[in-house]
């Protein structure tokens, strides 16, 4: 018990320090405007946009994994059902934070909902995000309702919160449980197309429709977005599940971890295949801008983010672990692989956003050069720490685990 409180204190301590640094960076950004970034009119999008699509992807991936449980009744993954929904909600919150600080005029963020250009993918995205976040919250609520009612009977602040959230309802009958399950199935079913076509496919589409950037301008792009979302979401949930179980001193369900690793391997291969087509078809067209973009990714000043982060750490090492006869049996190795996959997908996001904006749209216009400033890095770190902080508070305040698990833990 002692060591666990010390661990908790250290964890909060680290998060508070990171959030303080991030807070300083965000204040700098508000005071100095976008001049504090290394963005230019040639490369107008950078780290914050990369992080934004990274978190939208994590959210969509986590949510789609949750539908396997609540819609397709794959009970072997039940232990991570609510976790998946919680991660999906918090990832969206972070994505919105990132896109907010990226706006040239932050104080006008509400214009995005007030005015609606029907032909703008971005305008549709904003609305999809709102609907999607509402849907996720409703789904998380109904997945917890039974346990909230049980928790409301206790004492302490969690119980008070539970009483508030259940509106004093004490309906624990089988009929109400069934109703909750049916609602979950309905919400999940609506959520699938919303998440695939609206939220993350849509985020891919907003890049794909930019015809000025041939590298993005392909029908495969939205599909790759969705697949890489599944990759990153599955990897993150696997890692979170194992780390949390270990911290709380619980038994890790090795079979589920291995099954998730199998799923992750499948998604990774699909993602790789699509990625290959993306580059191959693009390069085969011999179009100047496309070739220059691919060249920038392969040989530019930050090509290490492609070869080392995206491919080596994000694909080669994890696949090696998943196929290695001894390592694939080790929960720790699998968890390491999953964390590497998440980092790899962050590399993917950077390599999507930046290189296509380094190459000039017309031959003869200046080339861009972009690497994030300290303010950009620290603010990003701070926002991520804020997300981890919210997550830690949420798993304390809400019955994210199923009750049987809680019993096992005690």
């Amino acid at each position, binding site marked *: 018990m002692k060591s666990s409180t010390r661990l908790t204190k250290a964890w909060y301590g680290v998060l508070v320090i990171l959030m303080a640094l991030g807070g300083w960076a965000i204040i700098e950004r508000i005071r*100095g*405007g*976008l*001049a504090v970034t290394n*963005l*230019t*009119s*040639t490369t*107008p*999008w950078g780290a914050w946009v990369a992080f934004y699509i990274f978190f939208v992807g994590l959210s969509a991936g986590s949510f789609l994994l949750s539908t396997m449980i609540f819609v397709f009744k794959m009970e072997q993954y039940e232990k991570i059902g609510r976790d998946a929904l919680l991660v999906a909600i918090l990832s969206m919150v972070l994505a919105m934070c990132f896109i907010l600080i*990226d*706006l*040239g*005029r932050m104080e*006008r*963020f509400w*214009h*995005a909902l*007030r*005015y*609606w*250009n029907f*032909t*703008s*993918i*971005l*305008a549709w995205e*904003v609305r999809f995000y709102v609907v999607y976040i509402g849907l996720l919250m409703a789904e998380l609520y109904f997945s917890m309702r039974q346990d909230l009612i049980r928790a409301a009977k206790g004492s302490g602040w969690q119980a008070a919160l539970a009483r508030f959230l259940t509106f004093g309802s004490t309906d624990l009958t089988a009929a109400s449980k069934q109703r909750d399950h049916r609602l979950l199935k309905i919400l999940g079913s609506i959520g699938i197309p919303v998440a695939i076509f609206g939220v993350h496919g849509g985020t891919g589409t*907003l890049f794909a*429709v*930019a*015809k*000025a*950037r041939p590298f993005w301008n392909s029908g495969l792009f939205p599909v790759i977005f969705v697949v890489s979302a599944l990759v990153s979401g599955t990897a993150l949930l696997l890692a979170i599940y194992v780390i949390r179980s270990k911290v709380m001193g619980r038994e890790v369900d090795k079979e589920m971890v291995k099954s998730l690793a199998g799923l992750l391997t499948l998604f990774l291969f699909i993602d790789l295949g699509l990625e290959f087509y993306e580059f191959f078809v693009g390069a085969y067209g011999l179009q100047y801008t496309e070739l220059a973009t691919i060249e920038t990714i392969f040989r530019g000043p930050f090509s290490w983010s492609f070869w080392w982060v995206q491919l080596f750490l994000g694909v080669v090492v994890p696949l090696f672990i998943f196929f290695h006869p001894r390592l694939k049996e080790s929960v720790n190795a699998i968890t390491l692989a999953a964390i590497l996959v998440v980092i790899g997908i962050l590399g993917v996001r950077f390599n999507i956003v930046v290189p296509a*904006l380094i190459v*000039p*749209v*017309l*031959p*003869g*216009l200046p080339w861009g050069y972009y690497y994030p400033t300290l303010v950009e890095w620290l603010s990003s770190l701070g926002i991520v720490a804020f997300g981890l902080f919210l997550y830690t508070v949420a798993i304390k305040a809400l019955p994210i685990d199923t009750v049987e698990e809680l019993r096992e833990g005690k």
Partner: protein
Amino acid sequence: MSSDKKWAMVIDLQKCIGCDTCTVACKAENRTPPGISYNVVIEEEKGIFPNVTKIHIPRPCMQCDRPACVQVCPVKATYKMENGIVAIDYDRCIGCRYCIVSCPYGARSFDFGEDYSREMIGYNEVQAPEYGIDRGKREKGKSPIGNVRKCMFCYHRLQRGEEPACVEVCLGDARYFGDLNDPESVVSKLAASPRAFVLQEEMGTKPRVIYLK
């Protein structure tokens, strides 16, 4: 400004000498901050020695009839005016820069809030009356800082019955400006020339800036 006019520009590349006077005049007219030039002159070298030539392509905003920027702007801050000019509403723009990413001509710039106050006394005291709107002093946190900016055919000058600054100052007289709706206008006749072409035609943007080979 009668709205039956459709403004267009024709640029004769044979007459352009690559002197950049248009770029300078544009900066002076619109008092654009550091890093923003509504008009630039792209230089290209063609051929293999000894048969080489230099081409200069002045590049203002193309005021496309099918503008990619207008298509993607989430809040309709950038829009097509009756007279063919693509305008930006500085008071609505949220600075998301999606239009910069989408413009196939690189004609849009983001105003990061920098200024020439060190090089030039009183730079921030007054701003150009872009779109015919007087915005007073250039101050932090006030539009157009944090917005996207671009050439608008010097709309404020058109309202006064003048030509765009770049057309007026062109040394080689390479730029022609006029009404494409009038079949008798110089630009209409030049636009019908076999020498006429537009940049990035395959993008389907239908530019209103037409070049002569």
